[in-house]
Every structure is written in C-alpha cells, then in structure tokens.
C-alpha cells in the first residue's frame, strides 16, 4: 500500500509556509542563530528559533496556556489540512487519524514545573503546567481544535521518529474506514536541551553545522513543526516506508542504515535526503550511502535549518516532495569540498527525478527511511 502526500504545513526558523521556506532554501539562506541562556548557568548556546511573528495568526482557547511546541504543531497541522483541501467536520472527524512525532516534547514547561518543585518545594508545583509536560499534550490540543474523535497517537523517539510516525501512519491506514492521516512532527528548543546535548558531545556552541565532516563538531538545535496530510491518492506517494531499526552502539548505526538503504534502493533512485547534522551519524550515513548507492545525489537541510529532532524527519520528507515537484535541490551549506559524496553544492537541477530516499538517523539509537515517488 502506498499513501500520497495531499498537503503539507511548515513552521521553521526560516519562516512559515512550504513554498516560502523552499524558496529561501533554494537561495541558500541559513536560519539566524540566537543566543540562549539560563539564569543559573554561565554557559550560553546558540539555537535556530522560530520567529514570534510566525505564530501571530493562531488564536484558539485551547492554546491559551499551551507551550510553543503545541502552537507550532497546530499552525503546521492546520496549514497542511488547508493545503490538502480537507475541512474537518463532525461528518468526517472519525475518518481522520492524527499521529504526532516528538522527541523532547514540552521541555520548556517541564523545566518550569520541576524548577518550582526543586526551588520552592512540591507545594509550589503548578497544576496548570503539569498537563502541558505530558508528551501527548500537543496532539490532544490539535485533536481538540480539529474535533478528531478517533485515532490519535503520539510517537516518541529520536531524530528518526518522524519517519517512524509515517510508517505507523501507513499501518494505521490499513483500516479502510480512514480517509486521511495527519502526521505532525514538532519540537521546541530550551537551554536545558542544548546543555544536555552539549554534555553528550553532540552540540556545538555556535553555527555552522558542517555536514559529513570528519571532525564531528556537532549540531545546532532548532525548533518548529512539519505536518503532512497522507491520503489514498496523489501525485507524490510514500512508495515504501521501511520499519527502521535500532543500533546498540554508535559504531553499529552504519549497518542499520545500509540495511534500510538496500531495501529502499531496489529501484532507481534520483536523490537522497540525508539527516546529516554534524555529529557521528554523518559518518554512518556517508559510509552507508557510499557502499549501497554510490554516486547518489545527496542533500542535507540541517546546516540551513538546524536539528529539529522530532520535527526533522517530517521536514526531510517535505523537502523530498518539494524537490520532486520542482525538479531541483537547494545547495548544501557548509560542506567541505573534500567530502566524497555527490552533494548538491549549489542549487542543482534534478529535472525528471521520479524517486527519492529519505534517510533519517537519530542520535539516540534509531534509524529509519522511506522512498518517495512522483507519478
């Protein structure tokens, strides 16, 4: 069974709107990094943040107290449904499934809630903040806004979780009573996340992200959301979604990615959307690509958009769909000339491209992939 992409919505540090962000990427734009600090710590970090103006059009009582992660998701989800021409009403609300991909979740409110507990004691714990710390809070807000009454799942994982959510959507849509599945990936940035990834030696303190570099200097976190409406028919399809795999040690990541690539590259592939983010996963992807589909044209968006973890897989799929639709790839930023992969180093035509692999390797032991086709 293959599902089609019927609509997409995008909230990124480069702005909102699929075509607007796409144009900026084609021009070679890079999101602006902003400093991010914390009152009890001297160290500050850089992150790619979504501009506040991106959320001004969204007002709903359910989002009054919600964290930005829920606002990103609602904005992207509603845009995707509008692009697909889907109006949710009481007649079709049961025929639409909602699947969320999240990695770190509502970390801003989680930190605020626990800070009160640590600094002032349990009696200061806020009953208003606590529900927003739950992983499925963003999904429940969007479900309530839309009136979705059936399947609502939140899937958690690492940077591969977006593709795992799409795989789950494929399984869910085996139920023929469903017309659509809205898949949303979303994430918000906080100093605490930056510090955690830094201590884990995966984050660098300031841009750029240098994809596929041997130095593995690290990533820069970003935030936002991506949303895709999956339907039964359409011009661009998820032709094959691999169930993914898990690696025990970092050195084993390449083997998982090779397995995924072998499965997805049994037909001719025109380009690959890589998840390279400046960490150890880049070498795993590079090794897998060179061995399984040497010479494949490869694009990596994270140097321009940052590592949005739970949202990143959805962003990659959206980029793949845009590249197939428009027949060109944006330039890969900050890549060393010494890298052996066939990277889109400047805006590159892929005219007539029919198939793309989306490869996603997370830093917390998960890998996933899928193949898009243009019909």
């Amino acid at each position, binding site marked *: 069974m293959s599902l089609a992409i019927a609509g997409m919505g995008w909230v990124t540090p480069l702005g909102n709107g699929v075509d607007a962000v796409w144009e900026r990427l084609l021009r070679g734009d890079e999101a602006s990094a902003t400093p991010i600090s914390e009152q009890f710590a001297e160290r500050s970090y850089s992150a790619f943040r979504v501009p506040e103006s991106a959320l001004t059009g969204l007002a709903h009582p359910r989002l009054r107290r919600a964290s930005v992660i829920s606002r990103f998701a609602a904005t992207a989800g509603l845009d995707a449904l509008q692009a697909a021409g889907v109006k949710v009403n009481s007649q079709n609300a049961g025929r639409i499934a909602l699947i969320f991909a999240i990695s770190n979740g509502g970390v801003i409110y989680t930190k605020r809630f626990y800070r009160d*507990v*640590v600094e002032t004691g349990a009696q200061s714990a806020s009953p208003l903040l606590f529900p927003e710390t739950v*992983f499925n809070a963003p999904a429940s*807000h969007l479900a309530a806004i839309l009136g979705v009454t059936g399947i609502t799942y939140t*899937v*958690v994982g690492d940077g591969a979780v977006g593709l795992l959510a799409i795989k789950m959507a494929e399984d869910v849509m085996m139920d023929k009573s469903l017309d659509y599945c809205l898949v949303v990936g979303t994430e918000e940035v906080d100093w605490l996340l930056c510090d955690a990834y830094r201590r884990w030696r995966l984050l660098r303190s300031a841009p750029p992200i240098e994809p596929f570099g041997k130095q593995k200097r690290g990533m820069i976190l970003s935030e936002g959301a991506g949303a895709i409406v999956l339907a039964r028919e359409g011009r661009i399809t998820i032709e094959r979604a691999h169930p993914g795999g*898990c690696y025990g040690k970092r050195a084993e990541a390449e083997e998982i990615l090779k397995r995924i690539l072998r499965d997805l590259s049994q037909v001719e592939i025109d380009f690959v959307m890589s998840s390279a983010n400046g960490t150890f996963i880049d070498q795993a992807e590079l090794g897998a690509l060179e061995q399984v589909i040497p010479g494949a044209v490869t694009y990596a968006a994270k140097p321009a958009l940052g590592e949005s973890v739970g949202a990143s897989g959805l962003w990659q799929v959206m980029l793949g769909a845009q590249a197939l639709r428009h027949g060109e790839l944006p330039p890969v930023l900050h890549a060393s000339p010494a890298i052996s992969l066939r990277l889109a180093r400047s805006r590159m035509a892929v005219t007539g491209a029919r198939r793309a692999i989306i490869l996603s390797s997370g830093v917390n032991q998960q890998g996933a992939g899928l193949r898009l086709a243009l019909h």
Partner: protein
Amino acid sequence: MAQLGSTTGKKNGERVAVVAAGVVSPLGFGLAETLNSLRRANDCVTDVTRFSVAECRCKTAGQVPDDRLLAGPNKKLRAKRLHRASHMMIHALREAVMQVPQFEPELTIIGTTSGGMSYGEQYYRSLCRSGNLRHAPTWIANYPAQKPVIDAQEEVLGVSAPCQVIANACASGTNAIGHAFECVRSGRYQRVLTGGYDALSELVFTGFDSLQASTPEKCRPFDRHRAGMVLGEGSAILALENLELARKQGAPVLAEIVGYGISTDNFHITQPDPSGVGPRQAMERALQSAQISADEVDYINAHGTATIFNDAAEGKAISQLFNGVPVSSTKSMMGHSLGAAGAIEAVISLLALRHQFLPPNINFEALDESLDLNVVANESRSAAVRTAISNSFGFGGTNASILIRRVEA
C-alpha cells in the same frame, strides 16, 4: 444495553494470539507471583521511599523493590548504568522470551509516559545546585523513552527489532497493544512484541499531587468514598503472533486478542467528558472490532483510577453498555502505573482468562450511589471467564479498550 452485531464491525482479518507474556509490578515479579497476589487480594501500595514526599498530600505508591529489580542476571556491566525502567523491561521481556525462545519480532510497539524521567530530574537538580555532573552523560543517554525498549531487546534477544514508542499518557500501554494487534490482524506483520513500562518519578508524582488527583488515603475505585489515585510502576510484555502461524509452529497460545477500540473525546486536557462518551466509544469500538456483543463479555478490567471524574465517566459508560458484568480496578492493589498500566492490566486479564477467576477491587466499602456496577469487591473469586475487556484512559481525552478471549486447548 447495546447490541453490536457483525454488520457494524470492521472486517475481520488474521487472528492474533498472545503466545507469551511477562510482567513486573508491585504485585510481583512474573506471572506466578502476580497471580498469587491477585488471588490473595494483596494491597501492594506502600510508603514512597524513592524521593521525599513530605510536602505532598499523597505519601504512598505501588513500588517495585530495587533489591530484586537490580539483582537480575544482566549480562553486561553497562547494566549498572541503565535506568530502573530498563531493568523492568528486561525482567518482563526475559520472562516472555523464556516461554517462546524462538520468537523473533518484526516490530516492537511499547507504551510509556515518562521514559527515564528520574535521570532527567537528577541532571536538572545537579545543574541548578552546582552539583556533581560527572554522571550527566549517563543520565542523558538513558533518559529517552525508547532506551529501555532497545536495552531490553539487546539484553534479552541479542538483537533489536524496529521499535515504535507510543506516549498517549495513561492509555499508552493499551494503545500499544491495540496497535500491535491491528498490525498482526492486517497481515502486514506476523510477530510483534508489545507492552508498556513506566518507573515512578518525582516530577510525575508531584504533578498528580498538584492536580489533587492523588489521594492521601487508600485507593478505592468506584467507591462512594473514593478520594483519588495512587501511582505505581512496572512493566509488562506480550508477544503477539498470527494465530495460525503460532499453531503451525507449536507455540503456546495463551489467549487471543479479538478487538481494539480507540476514541478521543476532546473535552479537557486532564478530565474526561462527564457523559462517559469517550470510554463508551472506546468500548463500543472494541466490541465492533471483535464483532461480538456486550453480552459475551465476562469480565471488565476497568481503568478505575479512583478519581471522582474518571470513575464517574467510566462507570456510567460501563453501565450503559454492559448488564451486570463483573468489574474490578486492579489499580486498587498496585497503583496506577501510567504507561505500563494498560499492559499490566492486559496481563491480569489474561491471567483471569487462563485461571478462571475475577481479580479483586480492594479497599471497597460501598458503591458510588450514582453508579450501577457489579464490582468484584475486596476478594477474588472463581468464575467462568471467556472474554475480558481492559480499559485505559488518559490525559488529552484519549481512550482505549482491548478485548481478550480465552482459547480452548
């Protein structure tokens, strides 16, 4: 009472067998200890020892003892660094795999709500108190929700199947089993591991306390004097396999999962719609999915958190759908283990089917006057149990029910 005929149900696909199960909870380690606790109606809720609860209203929880949990025969030194949640998953998976050593899952679907939250707490406390952050990389690496799943697969199976981790609040475990059931029923997968886990954490404990959802008293589901929930922890695993294939290969068939229902009621982020429409839809959809009528259900393992709102909504939905079917909430014995609850309660339902008894709803004095339920009060009792329904409902208005049926030899 609802009559749900086959015309309203989905088309049936492949039949789905439970070929193995494993469990760790305050009721005990493994199926045998759990069965014993259920039969004896043990109250396994104790004073919280893992963190200070001095400022909380609630002081108790169902807890898995560390002396046994961490003493397992884990093969590798790295096991010392693993989160307690990983140890729980390892114990549960090990028990399941001992029953079907050749089981190779194509996919693993697990429910949780908070992953390795207590490691996140240690990290944050150390940060803001300028404490020792030497172990920070270990805490951070073992914090993600998928980590206990991957750890358990590696430790017990030696390989790691692709995993999907569902975090649908307190419905997570039942959602995971339900989705796994659908995956096998559709014919897309032959063997799927499923279940749920959650380990007690200060943040979550304090959160429920702040909502005044947890009680300083005993947990009394459906009782007129109920005053709230107590938290718990644990893990449970079920190995699902295409029933025909399982029989061909001589695998044990412990039970059959026959239906799954899910609904979203959108009423409020922490409270159910008081009409009971969410739970009712989930149970109705499970019956439709199984193409059976409510008359065929012999036992209901209720979500039954003992909060005013949950039990009122669930109780109303049960009495609308079922006519005097025995109901119990086993959370009264072990607390509410959140993402693990649905999985542990599925295992409890499975034990009820296999050993022909009704698990008890303890601490029960008198039924809430507004409810019309046949509560299995305080003691387990023998009964003919062929089909059981297990409910889980969570924050965000997410509701899930699964139907499990006894398989005759």
